[in-house]
C-alpha cells in the first residue's frame, strides 16, 4: 500500500506492508530520515515527536496509513534557527538523543506563546524525557530562543535551506 504525504515540505511516498506500521518506522526504516529518534515506542518519551498537520505528536503512535495527504514536519523542517542556536548556546544538549523531539516541542510552544513562563514551558515539555536530566538548561534555552525570536522575524529551517541551494 502506497502512502503519500508531505515531509518537511517535500512530497514523499512510502510503500507499507502492514496496516500497523508507525510513522516513526516509515520515516526511519523506509525513508532513511533519521532525525526523528526511536526510544520507547509507547508514547512515553517524546523522542519521536513530529508535527502532524501542525500539532506535536508521537510519530510512534501514528499509523503511517493515517497520514495520506497529511503534512509532517520533523526536526529538519519544524524548528526555527533561533531555537537550535539557543539549545547550543545554553548547553541544553547533553547526550543529544532527546534533542530532536524537544526541539520540535519547543518550536510548537514558541509558535503559540511568545514569552512562556517556566510553568508553561514545563507543561509543554512534559511529554519529552531527557535521561541526562538536563531540564534546567533546556528551560534556559526556551527563554533564550523566545527572546531571540521576539526581535527577529521567524525563519524556519526548511525556508533557510530552500534559500541557500
Amino acid at each position, binding site marked *: 500500500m502506497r502512502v503519500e504525504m508531505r515531509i518537511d515540505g517535500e512530497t514523499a511516498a512510502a510503500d507499507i506492508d502492514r496496516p500497523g506500521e*508507525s510513522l516513526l518506522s516509515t520515516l526511519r526504516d523506509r525513508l532513511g530520515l533519521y532525525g526523528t529518534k526511536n526510544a520507547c*515506542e*509507547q*508514547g512515553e518519551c517524546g523522542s519521536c515527536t513530529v508535527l502532524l498537520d501542525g*500539532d506535536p505528536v508521537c510519530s510512534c503512535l*501514528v*499509523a503511517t*496509513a493515517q497520514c495520506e495527504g497529511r503534512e509532517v514536519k520533523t526536526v529538519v523542517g519544524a524548528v526555527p534557527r533561533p531555537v537550535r542556536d539557543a539549545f547550543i548556546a545554553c548547553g541544553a544538549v547533553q547526550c543529544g538523543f532527546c534533542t530532536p523531539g524537544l526541539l520540535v516541542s519547543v518550536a510548537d510552544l514558541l509558535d503559540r506563546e511568545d514569552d512562556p513562563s517556566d510553568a508553561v514551558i514545563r*507543561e509543554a515539555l512534559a*511529554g519529552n524525557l531527557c535521561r541526562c536530566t538536563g531540564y534546567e538548561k533546556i528551560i534556559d534555552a526556551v527563554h533564550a530562543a523566545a527572546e531571540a525570536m521576539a526581535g527577529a522575524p521567524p525563519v524556519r529551517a526548511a525556508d533557510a535551506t530552500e534559500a541557500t541551494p
Partner: protein
Amino acid sequence: MTAPAAPPFHRPADLDEALRLLAAHPEAVPVAGGTDLMVAVNYRRTRPAAMLDLTRIEALRAWSDEGDAIRLGSGVPYTRICAELATVLPGLAAAARTVGSPQIRNRGTLGGNLATASPAGDGHPPLLATGADIEIASTGGTRTVPVAEFFTGPKRSVLAPGELITSVIVPKAAGPQQFLKVGTRNAMVIAVCSLAVALDLDTRRLGTGIGSAGPTPLTAPEAALIELPWTRPGLFNDALADEFGRRVAAAARPIDDVRGTAAYRRHALAVCAARALRRVWTAAHGTETTR
C-alpha cells in the same frame, strides 16, 4: 522481489461508510488517536490484520451545543476538550488536561478512552459524575447507553462487534466540578486512583466518579446521598467532608498492583474526596472552608 501486498487499511470519509466497512470487515480494528492501540502494535501484543481509520470522519471530530448538554464527537482530541469546553464541561476538561502529555492529548480521544474501557481511563470519572450518555452506532442503527451501564469489567464494555462509539452526551455543568488524580508526577501518569465530583446547584445533586480503584470505573452512590446544608451553606464543615471521603473510599473496590496498594488507594480516595467536596462547596457558596 515482488511488491508487497496491499495491507487492508480502510479510510472511510464518513460514518455510514465506516459502519458498512466494519460490518463487511469485522477483523478491522478501529483506530483514532492510536495512543493505546499503537503501543500494543509496536510491542507485538497485537497484529491487526486490518485497520479502520476514524480520523477522517468529520462528524466524529466535532461537538455541538444541545442546550442542556454537549454532544461531543468521539474523535475530538483531548487538547480541544481542554481548549474549547473548559467552561461548560469543567470536570471533563480538568481530566483531559491530566491525560498523558501534549503529544498524547493532541491525538487521544474520549471515544478511544471508552472503547479501551480501562478502569484507569481519565475520562471516565467525570462522565460518571455528570451522568453522561454514550451514543453507539452500527449498520443496524444507533443506541444510547448511560455511562454507568457501559463498563462491564476490566477493559470490557457493552460495545459489540460492528459497533462504533459516535458521541458522548455530557450534561453541561450546573455548578462547580472537580477532578483529582493521584500519580507519581504531573504528566504521563496512569492514575493510581482518581476522583471526579460534580455539584448540581439546580437539582441539589452530587455526582461522583471513581477511577483506578475497582474492576471498572465506579460511582459512589452512598457518598452522593450525603446530606448537605443547602439552606445554610455556612454549616458545611470538615466533619461532613471527611464523612464524604469515608463513603467514597468505602465504594471503591481497589486491588494491590504495581501502581499502588488497595489500602493506599482507599486512603488517597478519602483524602481526595474530602478535598474535592470542600472545593466545590466553597466555589459554590464562597464559605471559608479552605484546606
